[in-house]
């Protein structure tokens, strides 16, 4: 259920008119209206148009009604419907972005928080509205020098695409520094784009702001062609999806990995370095992109289990059933909108489950999860019981670094 796109990658991106021209598009129409998608959707109780209904209306020729409703703003692109569809229809990949693009074009008013985030991404390359020139500020407190391609454009093995949260958010910056320490200890030949790096645009695309995605793609491709590197490794889970599945149609030809799978691939070299014992009970939260979408369930667990002293526990909903943190598909910037409608935050729901698992550390690998879960812990008053740590932070902590 989580196979790669395969044939779809080669096809042109379908539009609603050309849906039947591509194999994956035609597959959409094989829907048997079972409703599993609606049942598994984390916002299913408020989603007026789950995939089942959308396809039904597509067949009946009344799709316009979906476009003029704002219900699809509730979709956080968690890939649950895609993962559970018994027909294997690539719902989150194919159908939903097309529909959401039309919804977005017709929205009478874009919610204020989302409006600001999108404007900031367009203008400054990050949703925070921070200047591009501060994107590498996190390097200042790092004892290890990091190569920035604009300053030193020699060919490099790994282009590490840091991602927005991990560049600007204080906790994300902690993760970036931990990642550098790991790369250094593993002698990875890497460099970053530095202040030239801008958002990969995947969440804008998933939300339906395809124009913004296209603009960012144009920009990023122009930057990539300036440098020579063998592969791209990114800390952003959505960025991973963008580079792996969508940038190729704009000419991106490099192998792509997420830092988590990259490190898992180096586990035989990494494990001997993990000498400090960490006596934590850890629950790992499966990220939607890495987990349901790409099937990387065991790699993060292998990494965690390589740390001496770690006791791994599972939350009730794990692996394919994990509950999304609510950050994807624009959800990161829709909290005020959902709150005004009275919805519970998905991250609150997940954090309660984490606390009930008996873990004292909630381990994650997606930058959105870090900010959202820490915030939920604070709001629910559980921050005395549990902390949130990126896997890289735990790995770095277990390395006795001199």
């Amino acid at each position, binding site marked *: 259920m989580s196979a790669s796109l395969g044939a779809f990658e080669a096809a042109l991106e379908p539009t609603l008119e050309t849906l039947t021209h591509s194999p994956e598009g035609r597959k959409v129409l094989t829907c048997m209206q079972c409703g599993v998608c609606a049942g598994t959707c984390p916002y299913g109780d408020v989603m007026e148009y789950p995939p089942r209904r959308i396809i039904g209306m597509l067949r009946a020729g009344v799709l316009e009604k979906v476009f003029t409703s704002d219900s699809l703003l509730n979709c956080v692109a968690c890939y649950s419907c895609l993962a559970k569809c018994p027909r294997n229809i690539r719902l989150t990949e194919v159908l939903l972005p097309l529909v959401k693009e039309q919804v977005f074009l017709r929205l009478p008013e874009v919610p204020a928080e989302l409006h600001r985030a999108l404007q900031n991404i367009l203008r400054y390359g990050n949703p*925070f*509205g921070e200047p591009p020139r501060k994107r590498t500020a996190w390097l200042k407190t790092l004892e290890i020098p990091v190569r920035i391609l604009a300053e030193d454009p020699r060919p490099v093995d790994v282009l590490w695409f840091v991602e927005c949260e991990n560049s600007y958010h*204080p906790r994300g910056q902690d993760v970036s520094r931990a990642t550098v320490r790991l790369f250094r200890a593993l002698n990875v030949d890497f460099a970053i784009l530095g202040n030239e790096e801008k958002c990969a645009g995947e969440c804008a695309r998933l939300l339906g702001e395809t124009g913004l995605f296209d603009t960012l793609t144009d920009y990023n491709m122009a930057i990539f062609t300036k440098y020579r590197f063998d592969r791209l490794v990114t800390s952003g889970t959505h960025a991973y999806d963008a580079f792996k599945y969508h940038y190729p149609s704009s000419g991106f030809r490099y192998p792509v990995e997420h830092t988590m799978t990259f490190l898992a691939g180096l586990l035989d070299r990494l494990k001997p370095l993990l000498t400090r014992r960490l006596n934590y009970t850890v629950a790992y939260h499966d990220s939607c992109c890495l987990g349901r979408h790409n099937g990387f369930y065991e790699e993060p667990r292998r990494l965690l289990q390589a740390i001496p002293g770690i006791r791994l526990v599972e939350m009730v909903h794990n692996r394919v059933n994990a509950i999304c943190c609510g950050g994807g598909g624009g959800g990161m910037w829709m*909290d*005020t909108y959902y*709150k005004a409608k009275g919805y519970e935050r998905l991250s609150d729901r997940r954090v309660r489950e984490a606390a009930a698992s008996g873990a004292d550390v909630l381990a994650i690998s997606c930058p959105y999860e870090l900010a959202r879960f820490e*915030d939920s812990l*604070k*709001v629910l008053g559980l921050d005395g019981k549990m902390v949130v740590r990126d896997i890289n932070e735990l790995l770095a902590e277990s390395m006795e670094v001199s």
Partner: protein
Amino acid sequence: MEGDTWVLVEHWRGRVTETTFETLALGRELADSLGGRLVAVLLGHQCASLAAQLAAADGVLCGEHDALAEPSPESYAEALHQLSSARSPAAVLIPLTNVTLGIGTLLGARLGLPAVNFCKDLRVSGGNLEATCTIYGGKMEAVVAIRRQPAVLGIWPGVRPVDKGRLTGAPPVENVPVTLPQPQARFRRYLEPEAGDIDISQVECLVAVGRGIQDKQNLAVAEELAASLGGAVCGSRPVIDQGWLPLSRQVGKSGANVKARLYIAAGISGAPEHVEGIRQAGTIVAVNTDPHAPIFSFAHYGIVADAIEFLPAFTEAVRKRKQGA
């Protein structure tokens, strides 16, 4: 440059405003440097009684006309133009507020002179007037030299302490006739703010509470401080999420960007999501039990203390000061 320094008196609903007193304080310094008098220019309709509050000036020039009954930039500028053409002051200082906005520009246009805005400081240097102006949202200061008079100057609120310009007494008052046409923009009526919630992005003084306030009951402490300061209470996200304050009071990434002149952050750690909303605040005071809380990098004044203990003490101090003034 020589002559008198004029300060346009800003009055609103029968009161001389605090910005007028601040501007008078600055005007006094300028008048002394220029060797001329400080004159308060009181324009309005049936406003002569306000002259008693203007004792910081050497004299009051009072021009009354029914076209000046409501703040109308074109009428005020025309009146100022008539008066300044007849009397040649060295400088005309006009506070920059919602009441007076536009008057300086129109006056400058009539005189064929620049109206220099955003002034926070004035000095005389080599016979010329130098105005220090903060521009670009406070990110830069520009010093502007003014050689021709009258210098028309728009003055920021808060340039000098209010007390320095607030003296009561019996300054000599000269009543002058002004001839004015009816303004082209005709005033119809005032629209009072609706009862119900306020727009915190428009409030000048805010007391913001975060998780450090610990419990809904403790909001009262913030509310009392806000009342004593003439401001309003707002909060960071956790407080709103708990339901202690309505959504309209949220500051930060998912709430309002505030521009308050005084912002008191009580029990707020200073997470980026909150700080994003206070970047345009004037003076930020932070109260937090954690000396390493990030908020202290953004605040102007910091107190390491429990907000629940500090806020009442501060309220008391503010009340004492206001009574003593």
